[in-house]
């Protein structure tokens, strides 16, 4: 029997962000509740927690996502939470992020895997510094589509002018973030207006509900290039004289019979078969986890990259990049870190600080260090030659993390912006 159900439903990952207490967790609770994916025993659990932690007799929907003991006690979100629901048209992953500035690194974790951002803005306060910070980080990580949910409209009497004023202020700010698409919607996460059901209190608003916007949003691929890239993740020793090269296609596609180059060695090989458990494939595309077998023995290992003949990648020993610093110890020049990019680990150190981004007004300031949650533009000197793509071309081969050699912590998220000059 061929599988009839929902087979072609696509997956949309949505980042929910915005300033402290603007209603992110409540909105997610509302989306889940009104889409009927909250079970009765879960409602009972949050009802008893609402009375324990808040001394109220209702169900605080934000408790559906604020699941950690300390979050319930403090009434805030500390770390990212993932919630799932689907409609007939799509499967959604909702990524709730903390609004507090000290948890920005957790927000970055959420942003790195999202297709779209919903920015919550309290109608009484408008755009806050933290709203700007979140929006900037989301766009920095490559999110191109933003929905601004102007929340708590119930507290401003569903006033059209308040809504339009905030939208106007936002447009100016978001225009500065580059090539992104922005829409606005008035909602009340508490009462559910325009979340899943259309509100009668905003007759002046005609762009539908939040859920319809999410169902209709176009999902774009994580890579901007159509050139074939496959970072080798694992070499599978199938038998004494047969190896399979396993990995997830980062961009483009590969066909059986293609001649590919192995980077950085520049050696060549011809793809004899694309092997999967369910049979061989003629072609593997962007996002597929496959195994390639070659017509003769090739020398390649984890961290190497397959590309098509004539479609080289950038390479160098100095890269320019944007870094988000994520640990308490500040980043200073000339300290060596391990760097994980794609499936490769190398090491390097910051050789020059070009600027630090002042998130208040998005201006660049000179600096010689970065502290927790700061973002800067730096050059990194690598111990070995690195093959890479620019982050705007490929998140997989242009994004990397710093690993602290002493503490093993993930110290930074980096995005390559260019080849560094010596």
């Amino acid at each position, binding site marked *: 029997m061929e599988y009839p159900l929902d087979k072609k439903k696509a997956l949309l990952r949505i980042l929910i962000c915005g300033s402290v207490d603007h209603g992110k967790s409540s909105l997610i609770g509302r989306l889940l509740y009104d889409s009927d994916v909250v079970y009765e025993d879960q409602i009972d659990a949050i009802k008893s927690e609402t009375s324990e932690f808040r001394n109220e007799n209702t169900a605080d929907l934000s408790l559906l996502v604020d699941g950690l003991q300390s979050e319930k006690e403090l009434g805030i979100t500390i770390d990212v939470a993932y919630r799932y629901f689907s409609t007939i048209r*799509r499967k959604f992953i909702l990524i709730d992020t903390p609004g507090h500035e000290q948890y920005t690194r957790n927000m970055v974790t959420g942003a790195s895997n999202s297709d779209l951002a919903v920015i919550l803005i309290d109608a009484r306060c408008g755009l806050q510094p933290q709203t700007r910070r979140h929006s900037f980080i989301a766009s920095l990580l490559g999110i191109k589509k933003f929905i601004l949910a102007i929340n708590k409209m119930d507290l401003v009497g569903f006033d059209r002018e308040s809504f339009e004023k905030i939208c106007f202020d936002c447009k100016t700010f978001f225009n500065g973030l580059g090539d992104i698409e922005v829409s606005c919607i008035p909602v009340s996460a508490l009462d559910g207006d325009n979340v899943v059901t259309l509100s009668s209190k905003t007759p002046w608003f005609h762009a539908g509900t939040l859920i319809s916007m999410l169902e209709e949003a176009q999902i774009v691929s994580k890579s901007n290039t159509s050139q074939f890239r496959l970072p080798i993740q*694992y070499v599978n020793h199938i038998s004494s004289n047969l190896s399979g090269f396993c990995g997830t296609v980062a961009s483009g596609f590969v066909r059986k019979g293609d001649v590919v180059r192995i980077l950085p060695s520049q050696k060549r090989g011809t793809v004899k078969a694309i092997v999967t458990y369910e049979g061989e494939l003629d072609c593997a595309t962007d996002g597929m986890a496959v195994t390639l077998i070659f017509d003769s023995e090739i020398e390649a290992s984890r961290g190497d990259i397959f590309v098509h003949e004539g479609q080289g990648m950038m390479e160098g020993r100095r890269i320019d990049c944007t870094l988000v610093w994520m640990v308490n110890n500040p980043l200073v020049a000339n300290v060596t870190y391990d760097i994980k990019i794609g499936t490769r680990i190398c090491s390097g150190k910051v050789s020059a600080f070009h600027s630090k981004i002042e998130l208040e007004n998005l201006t660049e300031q000179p600096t010689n260090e970065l502290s927790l949650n700061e973002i800067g533009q730096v050059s990194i000197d690598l111990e070995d030659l690195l093959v890479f793509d620019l982050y705007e071309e490929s998140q997989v081969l242009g994004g990397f993390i710093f690993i602290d050699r002493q503490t*093993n912590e993930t110290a930074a998220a980096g995005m390559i912006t260019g080849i560094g000059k010596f």
Partner: protein
Amino acid sequence: MHISSFSHLSQLEAESIHIIREVAAEFENPVMLYSAGKDSSVMLHLALKAFYPALPPFPLLHVDTTWKFREMIKFRDALGAKLGIKMLVHINQEGIKDGLNPFSHDPGHYTDVMKTVGLKQALNHHGFDAAMGGARRDEERSRAKERIFSFRNDEHMWNPSDQRPELWNIYNTRINPTESIRAFPLSNWTELDVWEYILFKRIEVVSLYFARARAVVDIDGTKILVDDERMPTELRKKAKEEFVRFRTLGCYPLSGAVSSTARSVSEVITEIKGAENSERQGRLIDVDSIGSMEQKKRKGYF
């Protein structure tokens, strides 16, 4: 920019295979936890896919509390033999010596000793540096907060307030010798995704997931299957035949059945879509107190 045309199940599958391969590539001595439940069955299927035509380069580990449903144990043994993958079974002998029994001892204490302590003993004994588990973020609110690669200290403890940032699909697998990583390849799957995948790929699961007439005893509103003669006689006397199935499987004295007529995978899917209660509701050990899953995970539960 182009539009992605993958279906959600293909995307989840590719993401999980990527995670499993990353564990195999980055750790010296990884293991895959296997419980014979539906999530384990899906995770194992994904592991078979990830390394085909070779077998997965790691063993499976079942932490056996000795109170699992009999059918699960049969299923486990048959599967291990059929696939030719090493199936390690660990039982916490101290708990056996103390005669721990879920009918007469506190379920929380019993679970802690037989599952959490048992798991830690097995991981330490074999020196595993990474353990893959089939837990999903949609199961419970503290799981919804956990990273895909979850760092555990030298006592296997999870610290929810100090998790490593996890960017894109780059996983930081760096640990010191006595520390370990728990990796969750099914993090982004829901109960429904798992069942749809089982249907789509025709994955075999134990028949306890499908409804038929079974002898169950109502214990404080939870229907417990009479799985063997260890159930106290005074309880067994109250057994009634009912049409039931299980949404989640663990130790039989602690896993509640649900009334159901769903006899096939597609009927199960239809039923889940209309369900009013969550999957975990039938699990006695998860509903005993607010935040109990978080407490258990802090102590080293998977």
